[in-house]
């Protein structure tokens, strides 16, 4: 039974230009109750936070606690 790669829209969006993961910030990753955010390395070697798992309670600590306002929580499409 092979696993499929099914596309999904993710509710949490991070603005790369504002994200300071490069400076070692992991606040949004740390506070998420469902642990769905991670830090990714971009093509140019810099880092940014992103939503790795589409398992969002749209609760907002990531947005509220982000020191630079880089994180936006949208509602998952299925319930919006």
């Amino acid at each position: 039974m092979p696993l499929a790669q099914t596309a999904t829209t993710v509710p949490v969006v991070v603005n790369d230009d504002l994200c300071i993961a490069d400076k070692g910030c992991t606040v949004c990753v740390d506070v998420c109750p469902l642990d769905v955010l991670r830090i990714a390395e971009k093509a140019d070697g810099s880092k940014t936070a992103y939503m790795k798992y589409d398992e969002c309670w749209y609760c907002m600590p990531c947005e509220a606690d982000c020191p630079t306002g880089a994180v936006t929580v949208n509602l998952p499409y299925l319930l919006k």
Partner: protein
Amino acid sequence: MDEIQDGLTQIDCDILVIGGGTAGPMAALKAKRKNPNANVVLLDKANVKRSGAISMGMDGLNNSVIPGYATPEQYTKEITIANDGICDQAAVYRYAQECYGIIQELDEFGIRFQKDQNGEYDVKKVHHIGTYVLPMPNGDTVKKALYRQLRKARIQIVNRYMATRLLTGEGRIAGAICVNTRTAEFLVVRAKAVIMGLGAAGRLGLPTSGYLYGTYENASNSGEGYAMAYHAGAGLANLECYQINPLIKDYNGPACAYVAGPMGGYTANAKGERFIECDYWSGQMMQEFFDELQGGKGPVYLKLNHLAEETISEIERVLHIVERPTRGHFHAGRGTDYRKQMIEMHISEIGFCSGHSASGVFVDEHARTTIPGLYAAGDMANVPHNYMLGAFTNGAFAGLDAADFIADVDFATFDEGEVVAEQARVLAPTKRDDGIPPNQIEYKTRRLVNDYLQPPKVTAKMELAQQRFEEVREDMEQGMYVRDAHELMRSLEASSILDCADMAAAASLYRTESRWGLYHNRVEYERDDENWFCHTILTKGDDGKPAHSKKAVQPYVVEIADDEKDAYYNQRVDATVAAE
């Protein structure tokens, strides 16, 4: 991060608190203050800074018993009536007596409560009989204030470890087995006492949106507390008394009549007419809600559009910053303006949660479970209608009692074989090359919960549910497959959810009567006080399946007059009032 690694560490502590949401932090603080030499560990599968039901705060206390507004006797009576009399009053009465002290302590932590011009607490009436609702103007700061206290008290915090099974030995608690949610490494904690504050089983039914995490409860509250207590041999009470909520449709968050009600908002049918006198959540109220929908007068709405601009702005200010702040985004996306439209509501999927209902791990007025040294508090313990203040107060009781308990005991010895067996169970989905992902096991379980367990309850449907759950369990045990430590956490949650689904079906079939309005509406049976005026206790039987017994309701502390007993059944607004 997330790669599965081998590893097992063992630590010792005097008191292990599992769950860093509401009850857990208060339990840890109280235990540490009572015995400053005690080594207290607070463990959470998320991060204590933002974990649990009040991750983003809370807009008020729904059940404060404040001198001058309500008495402990009056509150105890109200909660007993709201639960159709099935209530051990000692725990409710002690809560009612001591919650005011907890409010004052929270005040000292920097959490403010609304006061009137005279500096008195500004308590509002929402319940059917008494006055207990106290707004919190800076309710968004609760978790931060708690966290400061935990650091100050030097509580040892362990984040991102998920407890999976309790350890017992010598007839009492011995500790817990935990797994790191990002590495899959094991942590065995030996403890003289364990306090569980793991929240509701909030991921039991499937939301109508179909989104697995679109739940009313914090979706990380997936029922581990109930499952662990069950496997450890503790008793669970009245699990057939489900929690079902009147929520904003699709958003599945609280419509918050508790906030809007005292300001003039109310629950209405499609014609904008009020049909229930009281918006306080109870099984009887949910039955009226259900009847209105079934009777062709739905949808049901929260009505605010008759209110003045200043009132609506104030309601928005409160509701859009605390508890579920994305609510504002949701309404904006739908084009719903409180000034113009009513807010569509619906009946939620089922869950377990004593926060608003009455089921959970059985505890007494000291938050003691049926296993010595094991405590439970908050949404997962069976003290009815806990809400946030109940979690704080009963968490405090647990911490205080545990501090005494550890004074007289050493670590209980346990069978090391249990750790080996649990490692094998947990890691089984990592040992396969292919199989069913945890999200499909979970989706199927929860869809079956909706199909067969959602009230009104029908015997044949619930028996069918049991058969299907067994098939899913077979698939889970033989074929579940995970690729990393994060998915492993989800697989463990899927297992807890399935355990809770099994318990929900078994408990509902055992009580052959109807009680608690919609929560246990068994269409084939009437209410039967002669045979069922009792608690039902579910334990793990010798065959590994749920076993049941009846337990007498303890003699009342506060007597209820015969003409008061059914007050919660008199909620429907009569036709003349509705037509005005």
